């Protein structure tokens, strides 16, 4: 996710080199599927682009990004396409003999195998629901994606957890890199300025924990980022917005999630 964002931020000054020959679109220009971006063999097609003959075309609606000799389009809308090592938020939808089926809001469901939970479970004794039950929300790592699109997730990572309480927000997965920001700058700012505990999954689900007004403020900020992700200087503007609404934003002191609310599955926020 960092490199995607890095491409987006790169100053247009970079492609004033002679090799920019054949580039038909400007950096950050809007493209639709089939738009010709490059008309030479000097460039290579990157993400969301394809080559046909001597030219490179966009595959999706997006914003052009040029990184050295690689041209790509940063998608504006997409479903989540799982990649190994992504951290995602998913809901347990089924308990099977070999593990848990997790819905990660992608075209394919994921499997959390028994071996990936870090403790011994005996499916014969039927104690799987004690570990993770249907409806539980998990923050997990995508451990494997095969070409046949079998997807495994793992809880054997320090960052993983099962959520207790809080709220789940659904956003466009294409905007998640922007919501997280370069090295987490954006999401950390939201956390600091609102005092809302926030965990974003690469698949477009975001978990929020805090008091109601604090949560609402964080949601407002995230929705704004989602809407204006293609504009410049967003981090500063979101910062100002949060400072202005500062009354509701208390310092991050309410950090005892499990105690303030009894363990229950987070309620889901409708997609907007």
């Amino acid at each position, binding site marked *: 996710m960092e490199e995607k964002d890095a491409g987006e931020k790169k100053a247009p000054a970079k492609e004033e080199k002679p090799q920019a020959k054949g580039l038909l679109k400007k950096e950050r220009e*809007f493209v*639709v*599927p*089939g*738009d*010709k971006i490059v008309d030479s063999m000097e460039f290579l097609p990157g993400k*969301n682009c*394809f080559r*046909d003959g001597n030219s490179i*075309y966009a*595959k*999706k*609606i997006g*914003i052009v990004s040029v990184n050295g000799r690689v041209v790509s389009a940063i*998608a*504006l*809308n*997409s*479903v989540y396409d799982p990649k190994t090592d992504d951290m995602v938020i998913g809901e347990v939808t089924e308990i099977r003999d070999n593990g848990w089926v997790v819905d990660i809001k992608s*075209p*394919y*469901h994921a499997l959390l195998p028994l071996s990936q939970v870090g403790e011994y479970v005996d499916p014969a004794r039927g104690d799987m629901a004690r570990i993770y039950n249907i409806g539980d929300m998990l923050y997990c790592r995508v451990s494997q994606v095969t070409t*046949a*699109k079998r997807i495994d997730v793992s809880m054997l990572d320090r960052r993983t957890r099962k959520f207790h309480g809080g709220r789940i927000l659904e956003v466009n997965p*294409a905007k998640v890199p922007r919501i997280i920001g370069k090295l987490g700058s954006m999401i950390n700012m939201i956390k600091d300025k609102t005092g809302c505990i926030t965990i974003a999954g690469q698949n477009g689900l975001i978990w929020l924990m805090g008091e109601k007004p604090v949560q609402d403020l964080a949601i407002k900020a995230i929705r704004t980022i989602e*809407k*204006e992700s*293609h504009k410049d200087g967003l981090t500063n503007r979101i910062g100002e917005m949060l400072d202005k609404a500062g009354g509701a934003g208390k310092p991050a002191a309410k950090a005892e999630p499990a105690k303030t609310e009894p363990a229950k599955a987070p309620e889901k926020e409708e*997609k*907007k």
Partner: protein
Amino acid sequence: MKREDGRKPDEMRPLVIKAGVLKEANGSALVKLGKTTAIAAVYGPRETHPRHLTRPDKALLRCYYNMAPFSTNDRVRPGRSRRSTEIAKVTREALEPALFLEEFPKASIEVFIEILQADAGTRTAGINAASVALADAGIPMRDLVTSIAAGRIDKTPILDLAGKEEEETECDLPIAYMPREKKITLMQMDGDIAQKNLREVIDTAIKVCEQIYEKQKEALKERWVGEGK
């Protein structure tokens, strides 16, 4: 030659395209071609149900075409008909070549086309809407698909038949066309036409597809990076 609504022979009806009109769909579009109004919604890629329809190598594209009961003067009987099944099939075949379906093996992409008002050219309006909706949903595509019908009255090729023209024309020939690839993905014909006149009618239709293409691009731009956003 004079047309019923005062258009030139190679002039289409006023075209309005709007992307992103539905909140719940992954992608959507509204197309108004004169009085004909079509709305398209795209869902997916998502898991295929029922499971046995899954294709291991690429995504399944499923299209649905439906006319609202109030879309014509006579009430349209709700539900599937011979006609709607056929149009759904040709729509699917018109859209399939434009999509990178192999990027989502086993998944399915569903396109729902709803005709709110019908005044000739519903399948072409539906294809135009579906193509914008697919792009709006962020589905990888080779090209957008544009579509328009043409015919021939009094030895003149006539574009975008409407009203009584449908009865007067020698033939009614809807086509779908990929402007970048310069490929025709749908061609049907009602009526009859001499082989030597056919090319002329097709060319009339293809010429205006470029205009439709520009409108489709504008609609997507407005939706994603427009001023209102």
